[in-house]
C-alpha cells in the first residue's frame, strides 16, 4: 500500500498529525498497535493546566482536535490563576479516560482520507536519506511520501516497579523492540528518558470524609472557540486534597534502596518538575508533609488517580505507603505505580519544522522528541502534520515564533537547546507570555492556520468578525465620554470608586485599576460578547506592559528575519570560538535569531557570523 502520509502511533501527537494531514487533503494512514488505545491517557486524568491549557487553545486555533474533544469529555473544569493577571490564566479539565479516547476515535473515523491500521511498526525504510515507508511486525511494508513518528514511550519501553523490570508500554501493551534500532542505524542519536505514574485506588475503598473537597468553577468554559459549553456547572465531579504524614515518610525512608530509582535499576533521566514521592522526601527532608490529590479517572469505572504519589517502590511498600495516608487506610490499589524508561531521539537532530535533519520527509512529534505531557505532544503532532503536508506540497513550513505561541517556544527550545530531561511547558519558559495569552490564541494563530489550510473558511470569517468587533468597541469607548453629573457622581460614590474630576472618555476611564467594562455598562450600552469585552479590557488595561512586550518582540524579530543559508560551512567562518562552532555545526540554526539562543554561542560569535554572512552572501541581496 502507498499513502501520502503515514503516522505511526495513536497517542495525542499521532491523532493530531493524522487528522490534520487528512483534513488538508492527503491520503493518510494512522498505524497503531491497538486501535482501542487511541488517544489513551496513561497518566493523569486531565487536559490543560498552567501553560498547557494555553497550548490546547493554540491547538484549537490551528485546527487541531484536543480542545474540541476535551470539551465533550470532561467532568470538571477550572480556570487556573483566575485571581492573577490575564497572561497566566489557563484552563484545566478533568477529562474522562473512557469518553476522551472514544470521542477522539469518533473524530478520526469521520475524517475523510484517513485510514486506521492496527499493527506494530518495527522499522523505517530509508533510501538515499529519504523516507520510503515502514515495516510492520508481520513483515509487511507500507509506503509513503512523508512519515510522522509519534511513538510515545513505546520505543524499548521498560516498566519498573522496585527491582522488577518488565519490557512493555503502559497498560501492559507491547513495546516496539526494533524501531529505535532502525532509527539508530539511520543516523539518529538515541537517549534514554524516564517518567512515572502514581498508583490508582478503588473509589469504594476511599474514606473521602477525611479529605478536603476540590470543586470545579461555577462558570462555563470551553477550550475551543468554535464550541459552546455543553455541561452544567453544578453537575461537575469533585476532586480531593490530602497529605502525606510522618508515617508515610518513615516507610519511604526505610525502603529507599528497594525503589527502582534509588536501588540503581533505572538508567533513564527523569524530569525535575515531576519527581517521585521518594525524590521529594529525600530532597526536601525538612518538609513534614506533601500535598496529594485524588482525582476520578472516569465516570464509567471506579478508579481514582493519586496525584503527587508517583513512585517506583515494589508493590508491598507501595501498599504500606498508601495505607499510611489519612482516608486511605483500607484503600484497594487497582494499579501499581511504576516508572517507565523509553528511547527518544535527540531533538537537536530536528529542524524547526519538526522534519528530521537525518532523513528527508521524516517528521517526529511528542515523547520521542523528549517532551512530556499530552498537550505538548498534541501541539507537536499538529505542527508535524501540517508541515509534512506543506513539504509534499512544496510550501514553506509553519514555524511559530516565540512571540506567537507557546507551541513556538516549545519547538524552538527543543530544536535549539535540546533537552536532557522530559520537557514540560511552563509559563516561565515563555519570555513573551504577556502576548501569549489563552484569551487571544485565535487572534494570534487562526490567520496563520487559514493561510496553511488547516482551518475552514467559516472559522476564518468568524475570526475576522471578532477582530472587527474588537476595533469597533475600542472606537466606541474612545469616542464616547462620560459627563460627571450628580447621578454619575452618586453611582461612583456608592460603588466606592474615585469620581473622575472632569468629563472623561470611557477608554481612559477603563484604564483605571478599579474600573471594568461591567461597571461602564451602567453608562454606555455595550452589545458585545463576553470574549470581545474581555479582550478589549485586557488590551486597554495592560496597554503599557503589552506595548513593551511587543517592542521587545519586534527587536528579536529582526534577528529571526536574518536567515542563515542551508549550505553555510562553519569551518570557513574565521574567529568563531570553538564551542560556538561545534554547536552551530550541530544545530544548524535557520536564522541569526535562533543562533543567538544557542547556549555557548555568545554575542561576539553572533557578530562574527553576521559579518561572515554579509561577506559571503551579501552580494546577492
Amino acid at each position, binding site marked *: 500500500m502507498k499513502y501520502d502520509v503515514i503516522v505511526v502511533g495513536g497517542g495525542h501527537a499521532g491523532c493530531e498529525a493524522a487528522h490534520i494531514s487528512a483534513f488538508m487533503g492527503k491520503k493518510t494512514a494512522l498505524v497503531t498497535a491497538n486501535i482501542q488505545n487511541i488517544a489513551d491517557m496513561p*497518566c*493523569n486524568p486531565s487536559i490543560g493546566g*498552567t*501553560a498547557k491549557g494555553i497550548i490546547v487553545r493554540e491547538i484549537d486555533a490551528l485546527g487541531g482536535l484536543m480542545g474540541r474533544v476535551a470539551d465533550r469529555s470532561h467532568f470538571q473544569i477550572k480556570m*487556573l*490563576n483566575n485571581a*492573577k*493577571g*490575564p*497572561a*497566566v490564566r489557563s484552563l484545566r479539565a478533568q477529562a474522562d479516560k473512557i469518553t476522551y479516547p472514544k470521542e477522539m476515535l469518533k473524530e478520526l473515523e469521520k475524517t475523510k482520507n484517513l485510514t486506521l491500521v492496527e499493527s506494530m511498526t518495527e522499522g523505517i525504510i530509508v533510501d538515499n536519506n529519504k523516507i520510503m515507508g515502514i515495516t510492520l511486525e508481520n513483515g509487511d511494508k507500507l509506503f509513503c511520501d512523508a512519515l510522522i513518528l509519534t511513538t510515545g514511550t513505546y520505543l524499548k519501553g521498560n516498566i519498573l516497579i522496585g527491582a522488577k523490570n518488565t519490557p512493555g508500554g503502559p497498560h501492559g501493551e507491547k513495546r516496539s523492540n526494533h524501531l529505535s534500532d532502525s532509527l539508530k542505524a539511520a543516523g539518529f542519536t538515541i537517549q534514554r528518558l524516564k517518567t512515572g505514574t*502514581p498508583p490508582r485506588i478503588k473509589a469504594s475503598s476511599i474514606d473521602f470524609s477525611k479529605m478536603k473537597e476540590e470543586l470545579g468553577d461555577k462558570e462555563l468554559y470551553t477550550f475551543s472557540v468554535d464550541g459552546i459549553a455543553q455541561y452544567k456547572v453544578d453537575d461537575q465531579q469533585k476532586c480531593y486534597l490530602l497529605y502525606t504524614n510522618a508515617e508515610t515518610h518513615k516507610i519511604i525512608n526505610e525502603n529507599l534502596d528497594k525503589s527502582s530509582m534509588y536501588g540503581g535499576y533505572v538508567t533513564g533521566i527523569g524530569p*525535575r*518538575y*515531576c*519527581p*517521585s514521592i521518594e*525524590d*521529594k522526601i529525600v*530532597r*526536601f527532608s525538612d*518538609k513534614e508533609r*506533601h*500535598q496529594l*490529590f485524588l482525582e476520578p479517572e472516569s465516570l464509567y469505572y471506579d478508579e481514582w488517580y493519586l*496525584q*503527587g504519589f*508517583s513512585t517506583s517502590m515494589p508493590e508491598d511498600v507501595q501498599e504500606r505507603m498508601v495505607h499510611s495516608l489519612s482516608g486511605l487506610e483500607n484503600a484497594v490499589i487497582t494499579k501499581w505505580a511504576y516508572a517507565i524508561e523509553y528511547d527518544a531521539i535527540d531533538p537537536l537532530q530536528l529542524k524547526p519544522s519538526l522534519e528530521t535533519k537525518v532523513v528527508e520527509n521524516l517528521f517526529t512529534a511528542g515523547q520521542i522528541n523528549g517532551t512530556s505531557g499530552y498537550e505538548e505532544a498534541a501541539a507537536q503532532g499538529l505542527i508535524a502534520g501540517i508541515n509534512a503536508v506543506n513539504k509534499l506540497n512544496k510550501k514553506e513550513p509553519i514555524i511559530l515564533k516565540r512571540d506567537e505561541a507557546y507551541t513556538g517556544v516549545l519547538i524552538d527550545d527543543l530544536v535549539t537547546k535540546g533537552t536532557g530531561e522530559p520537557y514540560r511547558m*511552563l*509559563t*516561565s*519558559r515563555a519570555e513573551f507570555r*504577556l502576548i501569549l495569552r489563552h484569551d487571544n490564541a485565535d487572534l494570534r494563530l487562526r490567520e496563520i492556520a487559514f493561510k496553511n489550510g488547516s482551518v475552514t473558511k467559516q472559522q476564518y470569517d468568524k475570526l475576522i468578525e471578532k477582530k472587527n468587533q474588537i476595533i469597533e468597541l475600542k472606537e466606541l469607548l474612545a469616542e464616547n465620554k462620560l459627563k460627571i453629573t450628580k447621578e454619575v457622581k452618586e453611582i461612583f460614590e456608592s460603588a466606592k470608586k474615585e469620581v473622575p474630576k472632569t468629563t472623561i472618555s470611557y477608554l481612559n476611564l477603563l484604564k483605571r*485599576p*478599579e474600573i471594568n467594562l461591567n461597571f461602564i455598562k451602567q453608562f454606555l450600552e455595550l452589545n458585545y460578547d463576553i470574549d470581545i469585552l474581555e479582550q478589549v479590557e485586557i488590551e486597554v488595561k*495592560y496597554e*503599557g*506592559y503589552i506595548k*513593551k*512586550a511587543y517592542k521587545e518582540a*519586534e*527587536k528579536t524579530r*529582526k534577528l529571526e528575519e536574518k536567515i542563515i543559508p542551508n549550505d553555510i560551512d562553519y569551518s570557513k567562518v*574565521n*574567529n568563531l*570560538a570553538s564551542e560556538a562552532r561545534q554547536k552551530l555545526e550541530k544545530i544548524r540554526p535557520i536564522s541569526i535569531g535562533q543562533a543567538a539562543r544557542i*547556549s555557548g554561542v*555568545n554575542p*561576539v*560569535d553572533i*557578530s*562574527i557570523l*553576521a*559579518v561572515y554572512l*554579509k*561577506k559571503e552572501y*551579501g552580494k546577492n541581496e
Partner: protein
Amino acid sequence: MEDTICAISTSLGVGAISIIRVSGQEALDIVNKIFKGKDLTKVKSHTINYGYIYDGEKNIDEVLVSVMLAPKTYTKEDVVEINCHGGISTTNKVLELLLENGARLAEPGEFTKRAFLNGRIDLTQAESVDALLKSKSDSAREVALNGVSGSLGKKIKNLRSILVELLANIEVNIDFPEYEDALEITHSNLKPRLTEVLETLKDLLATARNGKIISEGLNVAIVGRPNVGKSSILNSLLEEEKAIVTDIAGTTRDIIEGSATLNGILINFIDTAGIRETEDVVEKIGVDKSIAAIDSADLVILVLNNNEELTDEDKELLEKIKKYENIIFINKTDLERKLLFNKDDFTIVDGNTKEISGLDNLKKEIINKFNLEKIETKDMTYLSNVRQIDLTKKALKAVEHALANLDELIPVDMLAIDIKQAWDLLGEIIGENYQDALLDELFTNFCLGK
C-alpha cells in the same frame, strides 16, 4: 529595530573638543530630547546646528550638533554628532543623558560593524572589523569581570538573589497554583521587598560619584576676578600638600593646572586661564573663560574680596555657580567689610591669603562636601564607569516602574516583567547572564510534581 548606539569618539581629555557620535533609527529623536536649539528632526541633512544640551532645566554644555541622515553616513543609518566643549565630566554627562533617553553604549567597533553590515565599507576594511571583533572576544569577559570589584560584585549579587528568589516564587505561584507550600506573592508582601531593592539601588547610585572621585579625582575650579587672591590660594594648597606635577597618565593633563591630595583623594585644579599669572600684571581675562572652567568642575571655589562691593562680573559668577557644588572664599577679612550679598545658596569660608588664614577651613569644607573622610579608597564598592551607572539606573527605573504599577494594582505576574528586567540588567553589570538560572532556582527551592 536595531538599537540606537552612542559613544565618545574622540580621546577623552585630549583636545578641547570631544565628539559624541549617535547612530540608529532613533538618533535624532534621542538627541532632540536633550537639545535646545532648532528642532533637529526638521533640519536638513548634513547641517551643523548650534545650541545647548540640557539636563531637564539645567544647562550642561554649549554644543554644535551635526545632523546626517541615512543613507549617506558612516553607518548608513541616521547619525548625529555632538561637539562638546566642556571637558571630561561634561562629555560624560552628555553621554549619560543620551543613555538615559534610550540610546545604548556602543560596543568596541560597533559603528564600523554597522557600516559593514549596511554595505557602507568594503571587504578589505571589513577584515579589520573581524580582527576587532576577535580582539574583543578575548578581552570582553575579562573587562566585564575586572570592571566590577569584589565587594561591588557582592552587593549586586545580593540584589540579584533577592530578585531571583522573588521571581522563582512568583513563577511557582503561576505554574503550580495549587501548590500551597510556596508563599503567595501578593502586592502587600512584594512591596517591602521591592522597596528594599529600590533603596539599595539608590544607595549604589548615590555612591557612584565616589567611584568616579576615586578613579578620576575631584575637579576643582577656582574662579574670581583678577587680583582677588586665586593664585595665592592655589599656590598654598599645592605647596602644603606637596603638589603633584600635572603628569597624570591618561587624564586631563592639558586642562589641569596642578593636583594635590586630600585624604588620599586626588584634587585636580582646573586651569581657569591665567590664575597663576602674577598679580602685578594687568589681566585681561574676563568672566567668560572662568565659566568654561566651571562647567567641567565638580566643585567651584569663588574668591571674593571682603573690602570691595560686588561688581557685575561677581554677580554673574554668583548666579552661575548657584547650580554647582560651591564654596565662596571671602578674602581679606582683616579689612573693612564692604561686600554684601545674599549667602543663602552658598557655603562660605572666611579667610585672608596674606596671613594664610582660612585655608584649613577651606579644606575642611571640601572634605565635608564630598564626604572624603568616609570614602574608603582601598575597597571599591562603587559603581565607577558610565556603563555600570547606566545599567544601574535602568534597573532602578524598572523597580520604580514595578512599584508604581503595584500601587495601581497591576497583577503580580506582570510586575514580574519589571523584576525580571531589573535582574537581567544587574546581571549585565557583573557579566552573569545565564537564562536557565531562574528555572534552576525554581526546581531547587520548591518541591513540585505530580
